[in-house]
């Protein structure tokens, strides 16, 4: 199974229509990857779908970077008892 980071990159690439290989952990969704506010909403929805989790909107949307999303989602998966690799 792919790691959390790889899965986040795949989802981000699909929503923002960019190459996953161009995405790095330190990238900001808004500043570096060009996510607009509507796409941020889409990203949260798609991460929830990808990992089978429910995220609190305010907290999820306050995450700025790809690396931050990895940590945040790992934590949510752990709290909600969702198994992940990596």
């Amino acid at each position, binding site marked *: 199974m792919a790691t959390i980071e790889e899965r986040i990159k795949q989802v981000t690439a699909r929503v923002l229509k960019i190459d996953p290989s161009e995405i790095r952990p330190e990238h900001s969704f808004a500043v570096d990857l060009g996510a607009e*506010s*509507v796409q941020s*909403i*889409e990203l*949260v*929805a*798609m991460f*929830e*779908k990808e990992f089978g989790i429910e995220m*609190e*909107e*305010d907290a999820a*949307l306050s995450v700025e970077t790809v690396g931050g999303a990895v940590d945040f989602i790992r934590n949510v998966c752990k709290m909600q008892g969702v198994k992940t690799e990596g």
Partner: protein
Amino acid sequence: MGETVVTKIDKEERRTVEVREKHSNFVERSEPKESNMRLILIDRTESLRANFYPLAYSRPIWELRCGITSLAEKLVARLGLSDVACFVPDYMAAVYRQKTAWVVNDLSKLSGDDLILLDGRVKAEGLDKAVKGPSEIVLDGEGNVLYARIDRASAAKLPCDSIEAFVSSAAATLTKSQRILATWNYTWDLVLANPGQITKDFAIMGHDGIEGTVEQPNAVRGNRSDVFVARGALVHPMVVIDAEQGPVYLDEGVQVHPFTRIEGPCYIGKKSILLGAKCREGNSIGPMCRIGGEVEESIVQGYSNKYHDGFLGHAYVGEWVNLGALTTNSDLKNDYTTVSVMLDGKKSIDTGSTKVGSLIGDHTKTSVGVFLNTGAFVGAMAILMATGKPLPKHIPSFAWFVEGVVTKGFGRASVYQTARMAMSRRGCQWTDADQALWDAVFELTAPARNEAVRRGRIAMAK
């Protein structure tokens, strides 16, 4: 410090006077009041209230409008009672206390006087002036108590530990009357009855003439006795008031901008502004609204904006709604069959009418160019973005409709912040009680929203 206290008291007194005035539009013209009978209005049963969602999420049913006044004002005037107490869902009691002069959810009001118990759905025109008499009770076909007259001695024998226990015990013990009382059963009942009700209310209120300012040139069609321009209202030049098919009532402080056409029957509430609107027949617009574009046979509760072009027909719009430019609702199907509405997001209800527009809950905002489907249910606190085609017929409360699907969007804190800002722009305050009410509505509406969000994720992933 002392000055602050005085100011606060002064404001409170003003608010109380305003609330009393609000509930006395008709009472001042009715017969002398009975002093020892109390009206108890009740609106607590969720299964019945649900037929009036999304408008009833934040208010008792009797606060809904039909014609010139609310259902409550009609009931109180008809019965001729000035002592009124009420029972509303617990989650809205604190907010409702801020808005009414009546005692809310106080069980002590069930004793000490003769009582008239009344379900808020009962149509006022089926009632007579309240008079003392033997205790009796009227039920609907499902056994719900619609009306009860309970003398003081009988009331003292009923359990007072909850309003539900009191009512069910009354239903079990009092003499059943064979009277049939008509009720409002759905929100669209109010919309469909609105044009006729405006005409009836206009006749009862007995106002006509120009007390405000009507700048020339202007055109008034029909009988001038069917037009009332209240004091402080200002009608700019180049306005057509067409009272040929029904009366036009412009309440205090209304402004009508040039190139507006108002067809009666029509009521425009205090301090509302019509901005070059094509105001077709049968509209009731509450206070402090901004209305442009084409509006037909619709009710707007108050404090809402439809500033720009776009069609609103056979709709009921709540408070603090903003409809973006070119937002348009369908109120007639292409095949002219009757319109269905999905109140709960699952089951369609046939309205029996070929003309039903949208039901739009409080604090909902639409982007430019939103198309609402015939008989659309749009919950409260929702954010809608255009898709270029008609939106789904059910959009839950607190939903963010983005890219063609329901999402959680930026969440509840964000819409609360917007609500706070919108209210402050009109000099109103978002209180802790408001937030508690809407938190309760958020929980109440979670199942439908969560299901829609789940479906949205699936659709978005494809």
